[in-house]
């Protein structure tokens, strides 16, 4: 009984989900009564293997093909590894790159795939906990199969620590070069600009609840009155109402201000990933069940169009 967890790195560094995969992988291997193996593919695999050799890891298989993530190489390598070692579960991270190769691995192995697990219990029939409808409900799905693939939500499991004594070995397989039909040509940092929201002590952050672009001056005025910096959740940037450098979240900036005032932000998991480290989180939202309420320290359950003008007035400003 084995769990094979596929680690991630980018531009020479292992990513946090790799260490979270060790914790989740150990939990899954304990449920199933077996070993935890890691796959490390591309780049400085030996250096990565050293760092990943933490408590709970039984074996690390390295594949020195390519420098960066390439889904064609990852899919082939993980499929070959799974065929050689026959793990009960292939565990991957529910990251952008995880979603770029996990479904292909599941397809190649002809095993079921469940994505974005926030919890699981595999002591009997594997039961996976997920969220649906933007986090408003939780579901469980059962997997009735001898072998399955699973991706786990980043930051739901702690990063593994401690030093391990895993056996590290190169895994040899014949890469089919003709099946590598995508080529990563580079990376680009985006979203830099005149303001770095990561530097702000207080952020006034606006979300979909603002409804339309014409209402933005309201929160801009509040930010001015408070001496705060204006930031936003993804839909505001997608709509072109604010530039990319204002976006807080998984694909934007991670921020850790003293106070984060979330206005009309429901708290999608991708957004929360970028702001949950704030010292104090204040939510203004009409929906008392919005996911943002789970991480807020203080909340006002009311219409932002009623509350924000009052707040502006409190600080000597004038609502537009």
């Amino acid at each position, binding site marked *: 009984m084995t769990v094979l967890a596929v680690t991630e790195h980018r531009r020479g560094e292992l990513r946090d989900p790799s260490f979270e995969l060790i914790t989740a992988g150990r939990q899954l291997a304990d449920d199933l009564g077996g070993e935890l193996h890691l796959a490390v593919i591309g780049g400085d695999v030996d250096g990565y293997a050293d760092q990943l050799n933490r408590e709970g890891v039984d074996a690390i298989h390295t594949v020195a093909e390519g420098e960066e993530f390439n889904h064609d190489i990852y*899919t082939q390598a993980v499929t070959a590894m799974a065929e050689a070692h026959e793990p009960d579960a292939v565990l991957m991270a529910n990251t952008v790159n995880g979603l770029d190769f*996990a479904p292909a691995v599941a*397809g190649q192995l002809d095993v079921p*795939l469940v994505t974005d697990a926030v919890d699981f219990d595999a002591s009997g029939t594997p039961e996976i906990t997920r969220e649906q409808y933007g986090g*408003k409900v939780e*579901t469980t*799905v059962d997997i009735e199969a001898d072998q399955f693939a699973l991706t786990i939500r980043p930051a739901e499991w702690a990063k593994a620590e401690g030093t391990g004594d895993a056996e590290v070995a190169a895994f040899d397989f014949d890469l089919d070069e003709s099946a590598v039909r995508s080529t990563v040509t580079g990376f680009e940092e985006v979203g830099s600009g005149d303001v770095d929201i990561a530097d702000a002590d207080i952020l006034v952050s606006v979300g979909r609840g603002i409804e339309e672009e014409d209402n933005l001056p309201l929160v801009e005025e509040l930010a001015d009155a408070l001496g705060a910096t204006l930031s936003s959740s*993804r839909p505001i940037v997608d709509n072109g109402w604010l530039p990319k450098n204002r976006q807080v979240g998984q694909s934007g900036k991670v921020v850790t201000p003293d106070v984060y005032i979330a206005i009309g932000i429901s708290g999608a998991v991708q957004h929360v990933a970028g702001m949950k480290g704030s010292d104090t989180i204040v939510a203004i939202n009409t929906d008392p069940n919005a996911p943002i309420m789970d991480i807020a320290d203080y909340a006002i359950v009311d219409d932002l169009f009623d509350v924000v003008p009052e707040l502006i007035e409190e600080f000597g400003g004038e609502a537009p």
Partner: protein
Amino acid sequence: MKVLVTVKEVAEVDDEFTIDGLDVDESYLEYDLNEWDDYAIEEAVQLSEANDDVEVVTVTVGPERADETIRMALAKGADRALRVWDDAIAGAEFLDPGTKAQLLEAVVEEEDPDLVLTGVQSGDDAFGATGVALAERVGYEWAAVVNDLEHDVEANDSSVRRELEGGVEELTDVEGPAVLTIQTGINEPRYASLRGIRQAQRKPLDVQTLDDLGLEESVLETSVDLTSMYEPESESDAVIWEGSADETAGELASFLRDSGVVEG
């Protein structure tokens, strides 16, 4: 060239709701075109507007109610639409990404598109896996979470940007035929014009059954079963300021002053 866009009608849940068995009670659900798919449609329509002889075909798996959604895609400029459904699919308890990919595989084999665009994920069950699973099944190349696309129609190759975490984008060249999963923000989806909505009524909307697609009912058998749905226990220990807007704003103002982060 032919572009196939997969779309989904998704359910959105009211602020207050109850759960009935394995789903939210129907009376608390509102249906709409999946947000991510809206961007995929726009990308395909822009491709057809910028090049000669690009046909945009859109497909959904869903009941008759979903005609409204797919007509929205037609109103925005898709040329024709397919809807896959029959009693057997209606009776299936849970369509996991593997099952959906098999249904769409049959459509891809029938249509033989040069490019398939899908949304990154659906707003309701959010598996985020159907596009890549489909690519693997039909032997197409793929790229997930694309937020910029330049497509060379002659060569059928794409240069894409993939939106990674933390404000980093990956630049990738993808050989066609390919499946690209489209991220929100890649473009500005248009509103359907009244003229477009009128025209959509006249465009072909073809309903295909499993039988039409040459599939057996066994395609619906899956080893992934939805077994429960419940409201998560609130982890909130937030202090809720209550009262009128001026009272709650006053509480927040006092907090900001008392904590010293705001002067004045």
